[in-house]
């Protein structure tokens, strides 16, 4: 199921989660252990953050033996990156409607 934009923004609204996500984007697939070693929070905290990112569809987990590997799902960011183009279309259309209204208004 596709996560909503709200979930994506909420998931990435936390600086620690954003840092984890950026690291996964940059370095590729990582285990929870490696991610914990590179951060200054505990392993349970890292796991919890990864859970939030996973529910928002931003990362995917792969189990291998006793380790869980995480990697980013960059396509999940589309609503965020599309923000400007979304509003650009919106406002251009509204400007046309505004012009139409002005033509109909009393001077």
């Amino acid at each position: 199921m596709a996560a909503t934009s709200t979930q994506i923004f909420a998931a990435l609204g936390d600086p620690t989660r954003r840092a984890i996500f950026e690291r996964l984007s940059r370095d590729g697939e990582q285990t929870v252990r490696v991610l914990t070693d590179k951060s200054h929070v505990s392993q349970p905290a890292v796991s919890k953050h990864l859970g939030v990112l996973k529910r928002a569809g931003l990362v995917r987990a792969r189990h291998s033996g006793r380790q869980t590997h995480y990697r980013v799902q960059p396509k999940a960011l589309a609503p965020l990156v599309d923000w400007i183009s979304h509003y650009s279309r919106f406002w251009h259309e509204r400007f046309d409607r505004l012009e139409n209204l002005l033509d109909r208004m009393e001077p």
Partner: protein
Amino acid sequence: MNTAATRTLVIEKEFAHSPEKVWRALTQGALIKEWLMDNDFQPVVGHRFTFRATPVANWSGVINSEVLVVEPNERLSYSWGSLGLETSVVWTLVATKTGTLLRMEQSGFGSDQDAAYKGAKYGWTKFIGNMERVVGGLQ
């Protein structure tokens, strides 16, 4: 896309109508509804109001706003919060020989009003820039 472009959207258009008339269309609730959205806007700084679009899946259609600047016939600004994204909209009206040059500037990935997003204020822009490179690298 450069960093500035990810933060601010600018749309300009010249209308063959006076700034006073354009101002009315921007600040009178019934007129705003005709071209933008249903609303309970009042041209009073500090007034909190909502724009109401047609609800869609996963979105109530409600945009939470607060009036930030009211300079009659010249400048109007309000915040624009939806989907956890807090932006601001600034309208600038400049009289021209034949009418009005209207400029709309929407900017921000700030978080002034939504406590849930506090702490994100200074990080979003850089993050978005980085992520655009990630997504761009896929194509």
